[in-house]
């Protein structure tokens, strides 16, 4: 029997899981249009490989990973690329972003699918396959899986089946229905990091999922562990704490303490990729809340929210928006044409009855209930004050970046202060300042380099000129010494080298001028001839005067 540990704080919000967990999952039919944002993961945006008008096959890569912390995106079905451009995406800003829009052709023709013989593959090769297969963490943060599993040594592999957020039941259904496949995916991850122990943590409000996983894990050495239901047990750091007693250091990653963590849905996606050659094209989504038939639906990435709500027999009256994700951390949106992305694990149809508007806030009374609830062991009330006063440096000193934005503090706040909004505001301000600082540093470097380059060019020019003069001087001196007679004829008796060079140049120019014939001088009228003659006479006069003057000045 394993001894479980505790993390600090946590809350017990109403679960609302039974609404959707008891219906078997269904598969969504092909939608009319698929919109695939190029940024569906943490890290660099993927680079589009297709153009409008291209025909794509199901599973064909349509955007490649850009750099290491990035992941590829694939066509979820065969069809025609309609556009590559801006489309609204599920993001708190509501701003449009780069998306690939595909019109399915209905045939659902697969591209080449080859299962990988992963046991005989090099580790690096397998990691690249994960990246090019578009595998990212499906727990919600969408961190590219190949980065998570890149560095050894890993002592403990933690598989996250806790699913602690209310309303969401995708992992529950997946474990109940596809336990064997999940275990096959876990085997691939185990092969990658060869951990000493593999633990699956599942909250005790999912007894059927626990039973299914236990059965699938029999004789594999994988341990299924029942953990008490407490929000946010499903947080990576919190689950690791519960199962191993180890704490992920501030600002660190689980790998720093020899732990790798992955969601059950990610393990399932890894299984589809490795054992069936199918990249990440679809995911299980809970459609619940104010709908006729709350349920889990396996849906192609890029499907609009509206189609999913229709599949759950439509929204009930009183609908006033959607939550993507759970009620604690999810994103509130109004647009039902937003696409499902890799991070969308749940759509909660909102109504004023289910989610009454938050009561207006009262001033903070420093009761520190938020500090008692904080699972990251922070001081939320201090962070709130600092964020409110825009004292971002102070907020960072109080480990603002260890905040996982779980919303437990705001949930317990008796003054109903939207605390998480303050932390998000402070975090994005700090990031923006960092970006500005980096840009300024780059500009300074470029400016300094430019100044130095100009200085260097000047120096080099001066050196070259000095060398040339020296060489010319040496050349004329040797010439003068070797053949005094011809030199004397061209140079004046004074022996002034510079004057000699100028005279030589003038002579050359005269010769050149004499060679050049005037153009358009044939077939001229007598009048034109007369004009030319007059001009020539004037020129001759000027030349005569100039000669006269130089003679005077020389004398």
């Amino acid at each position, binding site marked *: 029997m394993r001894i479980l540990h505790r993390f600090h704080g946590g809350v017990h919000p109403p679960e609302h899981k039974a609404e959707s967990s008891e219906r078997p999952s269904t598969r969504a039919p092909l939608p009319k249009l698929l919109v695939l944002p190029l940024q569906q993961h943490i890290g660099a945006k993927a680079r589009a490989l297709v153009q409008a008008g291209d025909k794509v096959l199901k599973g064909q890569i349509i955007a490649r990973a850009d750099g290491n912390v990035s992941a590829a995106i694939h066509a979820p079905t065969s069809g025609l690329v309609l556009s590559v451009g801006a489309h609204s995406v599920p993001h708190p800003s509501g701003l449009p972003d780069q998306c690939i829009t595909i019109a399915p052709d209905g045939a659902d023709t697969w591209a080449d699918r080859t299962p990988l013989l992963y046991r005989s593959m090099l580790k690096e090769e397998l990691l690249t396959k994960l990246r090019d297969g578009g595998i990212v963490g499906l727990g919600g943060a969408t961190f590219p899986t190949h980065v998570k599993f890149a560095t050894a040594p890993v002592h403990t592999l933690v598989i996250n089946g806790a699913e602690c957020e209310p309303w969401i039941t995708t992992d529950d259904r997946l474990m109940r229905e596809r336990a064997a496949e999940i275990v096959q995916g876990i085997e691939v991850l185990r092969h990658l990091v060869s951990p000493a122990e593999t633990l699956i943590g599942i909250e005790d409000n999912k007894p059927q999922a626990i039973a299914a996983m236990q059965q699938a894990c029999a004789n594999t050495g994988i341990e299924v562990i029942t953990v008490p239901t407490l929000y946010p047990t499903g947080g990576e750091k919190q689950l690791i704490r519960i199962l191993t007693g180890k704490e992920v250091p501030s600002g660190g990653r689980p790998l720093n303490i020899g732990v790798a963590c992955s969601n059950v849905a990610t393990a399932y996606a890894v299984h589809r990729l490795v054992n069936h050659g199918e990249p990440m094209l679809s995911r299980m989504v809970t459609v619940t809340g104010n709908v006729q038939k709350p349920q889990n639906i396996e849906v192609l990435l890029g499907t609009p929210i509206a189609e999913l709500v229709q599949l759950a027999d439509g929204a009930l009256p009183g609908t006033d928006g959607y939550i993507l994700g759970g009620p604690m951390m999810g994103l509130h949106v109004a647009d039902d044409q937003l696409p499902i992305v890799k991070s969308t694990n749940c759509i909660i149809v909102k109504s004023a009855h289910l989610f009454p508007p938050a009561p207006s806030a009262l001033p903070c009374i420093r009761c520190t209930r938020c500090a008692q609830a904080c699972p990251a062991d922070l001081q939320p009330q201090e962070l709130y004050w600092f964020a409110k006063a825009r004292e971002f440096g102070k907020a960072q000193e109080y480990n603002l970046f260890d905040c996982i934005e779980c919303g437990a503090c705001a949930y317990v706040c008796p003054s109903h202060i939207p605390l998480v909004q303050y932390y998000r*505001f402070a*975090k994005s301000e700090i990031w923006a300042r960092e970006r500005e600082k980096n840009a300024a540093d780059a500009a300074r470097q470029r400016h300094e380099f430019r100044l130095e380059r100009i200085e260097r060019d000047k120096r080099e020019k001066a050196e070259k000129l000095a060398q040339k003069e020296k060489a010319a001087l040496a050349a004329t001196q040797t010439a003068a010494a070797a053949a005094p007679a011809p030199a004397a004829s061209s140079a004046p008796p004074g022996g002034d080298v510079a004057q000699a060079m100028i005279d030589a140049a003038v002579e050359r120019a005269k010769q050149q001028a004499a060679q050049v014939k005037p153009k358009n001088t044939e077939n001229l009228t007598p009048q034109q001839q007369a004009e030319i003659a007059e001009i020539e006479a004037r020129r001759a006069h000027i030349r005569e005067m100039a000669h006269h003057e130089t003679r005077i000045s020389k004398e």
Partner: protein
Amino acid sequence: MLAALYVMAGIAVALGAMLGFSAIKFRVEGNPLVDKIDGVLPQTQCGQCGYPGCKPYATAIANGEADINRCPPGGEDGIRKLAELLGVEFKPFGEGTAQPKPKSVAFIDENICIGCTLCLQACPVDAISGAAKQMHTIIAQECTGCELCIAPCPVDCISMEPLPQTVQTWKWHYPVYSMRQAA
């Protein structure tokens, strides 16, 4: 009595020698305050402050020759940071002087550009690529939006394009919500 004098004199000489030695050995090159001020300035190198670049302005501030409210690209935030660094009062931008503008980058209309290289020579951060009689273009990522390339252009083909907000650069707003009046 004499012994005490010798001892005191000896100590004085020894300490003096030590101070003299460390003054030479641990001498700080340049003015560290200038670098600190330069670190706060936005490095647009635009010259709107009246100095030929950020470093000269930083030097002028450090020498007490320039005010801290002469850098429009730094915005009021920049003035606040300078005030904090130097321990002086915050000063708003003066009336009639250059005011902060939204961040923009230069854009060359390539149909009009004649390839004269004048803007290349004006750019303080080498953010324009091109050559004589070849079309020029702005490397938008490196452009600081200093507008120094606009004046020299003989055909007026350079314009400033404000940077649009994207999903990547978007910031969360300061939370605004109704607060209930306590009775």
